[in-house]
């Protein structure tokens, strides 16, 4: 579903190497957790997938489409929520959702059904007519997720989705990720909150200084490092070296 092949990316004309030869495959129907300490290169990797950055080297395929040669086909398969969703302050929630749905060519019928469900679930039905500028951080994140799900993308990509969410909203986010995957679709999300990853993910990849240092199911990872305990101890072990 999502494949990084030898991806590298440097900032500031090559001075800061953010991602360094990343190889990673995310299978259809799984929830994949992309873990790593701050500054490991998670956001950079995700931005290359969704078309916000260009890789210096390597190839990314989404749903079989090369992001470089077929960017539109690749983007059509993605729903994306960035780490800090800066949405248009001067549009209302409804105007924003309609804009996104129009761009993805979601029919009126489908958008009504999906919207009604999501809006009620997130309890933002009273705010959809207000300007996004008046939304709280959590509401913006919910709206961004609603927009990302409005075309039911095969691949949902979330960058640090739990940051700044209250427990109830965080729970809803997790529910939706589970549901998305139950319908046979894929979730790829980055996080540094380990117990979320531990409970939610089928597989995780750990990245450090732009390099993938471990990847697999939790059991596989435990095995790899010869540790028995939680994901936390595995994480600490592999990121230590």
């Amino acid at each position, binding site marked *: 579903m999502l494949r990084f092949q030898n991806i590298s990316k440097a900032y500031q004309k090559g001075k800061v190497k953010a991602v360094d030869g990343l190889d990673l495959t995310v299978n259809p129907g799984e929830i994949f957790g992309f873990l790593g300490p701050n500054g490991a290169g998670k956001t950079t990797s995700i931005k290359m997938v969704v078309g916000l950055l260009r890789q210096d080297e390597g190839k990314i395929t989404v749903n079989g489409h090369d992001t470089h040669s077929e960017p539109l086909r690749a983007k059509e398969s993605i729903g994306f929520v960035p780490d800090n969703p800066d949405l*248009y302050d001067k549009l209302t929630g409804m105007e924003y959702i309609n804009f996104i749905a129009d761009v993805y060519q979601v029919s009126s019928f489908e958008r009504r059904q999906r919207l009604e469900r999501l809006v009620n679930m997130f309890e933002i039905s009273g705010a959809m007519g207000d300007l996004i500028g008046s939304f709280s951080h959590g509401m913006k994140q919910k709206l961004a997720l609603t927009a990302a799900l409005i075309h039911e993308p095969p691949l949902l990509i979330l960058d640090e989705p739990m940051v700044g969410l209250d427990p109830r909203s965080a729970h809803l986010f997790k529910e939706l990720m589970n549901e998305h995957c139950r319908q046979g679709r894929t979730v790829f999300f980055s996080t540094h909150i380990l117990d979320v990853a531990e409970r939610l993910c089928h597989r995780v990849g750990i990245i450090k200084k732009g390099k993938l240092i471990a990847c697999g199911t939790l059991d596989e990872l435990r095995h790899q490092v010869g540790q028995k305990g939680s994901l936390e101890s595995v994480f600490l072990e592999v990121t230590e070296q």
Partner: protein
Amino acid sequence: MTALLSLFRISLQSYFGLSAMRIKYLKKKQQLWEPFLVVFAVIVGGASFGSMFYFSALQMARGAALLGQADAVLTMYILVAQMLALMFGLFAMTSIFYFSNDLDILVPLPLRAWHILATKFSLVNITEYAPVVVVLVPTLLAYHRIVGLSLVGWVGAFITMVFVPIIPLALAGILAVTVMRGVNRRHRDILMVVASLVLLVVIFYLQYQFMSDLTGQVDAEDIINNRIDFVNVVGAAFPPAVWATRAIAAEVTGERLTNLAYLFFTAALAIGAFLMVGQKVFYGGLVGGAEKVRRGVVYTSRVIERQAVQSSTAKALLLREFRLFVRMPIWLMNGFLTVILFPLMAFFPAFFGATGDINSLTAIARQHPQGLAIATLIAAGAIAMMTSLNTLTSTSISREGKHLWIIKSLPVDAKTQVRAKLCFALAAALLSSLPLIAVYAVLINPGGFHLVIAFALGITAGLTPQVLGLWFDLWRPFLTWSNPQHAVKNNLNAVSPLIVMIPLGYLSYLGYMALIASGTTVPLLVLLAAHAALAVTAVTALLAKADHLYARLEVKG
């Protein structure tokens, strides 16, 4: 007092981005060509607006001088400057009080309420001097040419100009602070636009009423015998304009000083009133948390059913451009309203003033063999210039700012996005050319053919600079702004279309001169064809490059 001064200094620096500029240009000496380009653009922009005011004032002054009433021209244009100050002031005051985010920082500081209010007032007042200078300096030059202005007169004029925007601005401030207080956040932007347009219509209407009353009552004999003073008549609605006129043009210095004193005290009074109202209404409400919050519509299935309706991608993109632009008052004002207002204001007095002059203009245009063709070229040039001055395309990517990720991650190809941006700009250009065409039609009455040519030539000639402006902004956008004002004002890209427009205008002039032997119609048609071809080429080239330019744009954040 020291608190007020340091607040003023720091606000000045952040409002105009002075510190950033000092570091960049004076300390690091980076990209020193930028300030030069900005100065150049300011001169060209100011000169093109200014020349409109100069010629219309000159025309008026000639007519009025025959009646010995040239001073009334000063009154008229002082009124125009004050009208502009009132209208821009309404926008700027609302923005600075209700759309800026520094209040959260300022209010907890140990400052007095009036410190904050006075600082914000001064900042806006400083920006108001730009339109005042653009209107009044050309007017004074025109007046000087007809009547002559002594050195003392010039000194008086510059002191007077300091006071010209203060009173209308205080009015705008009081209006903004009291009216906006009771209005829901969501409706403020639109209210501001509507209010300023209503204001414009009201002022036009009042002026019109006034002038028709005047022509009804005034006896030709009274005018000839100088028994009536046009200055008082024109300025009756707003006495400060009369005082300002006398402060510039009075014959005795004593009278000048008296009128300056009037101006000074009225300005002081107006500022005092603003501070009082501001303290009570704005500051009191802010601290008391009296912001009105409207409960929004709840999106039940019925509402969703009604509102969640599919439309085409192209339409959605266009609508997005439109909404984001009009809902940001600063952008609307800077990029668009200024461009409409200035030409209207330049010829405003001519509509209601001495009607005889309009006829003489028509006569000149008709008598000279090339008259109509030249007038058409001037009208087209004005339209192209106004189009190049609006910053719609040249800050189009910059205005996306931290929201650029949205359009970058959507599955819409770059061509479609560029097309939407160009369509929006074209629609705006068409709209903003209407007032100019109306002015042309009324002043010269050139007939359908020349009107159409002026319109088409202006639009096509303005399109190429706009396209290149978008190209430039795609190539090096300014995305890291936090204050929306900086996206259009502290952005060098905004002037790029103008830089293209100037050589194009010059080439068109050369082309016209080369073709002048072939009659009056052929050169116009050839120019139109050439500009149309150029515009089509520019659009095609940009569309061909769009994918590449979009791909280059990285959202690093």
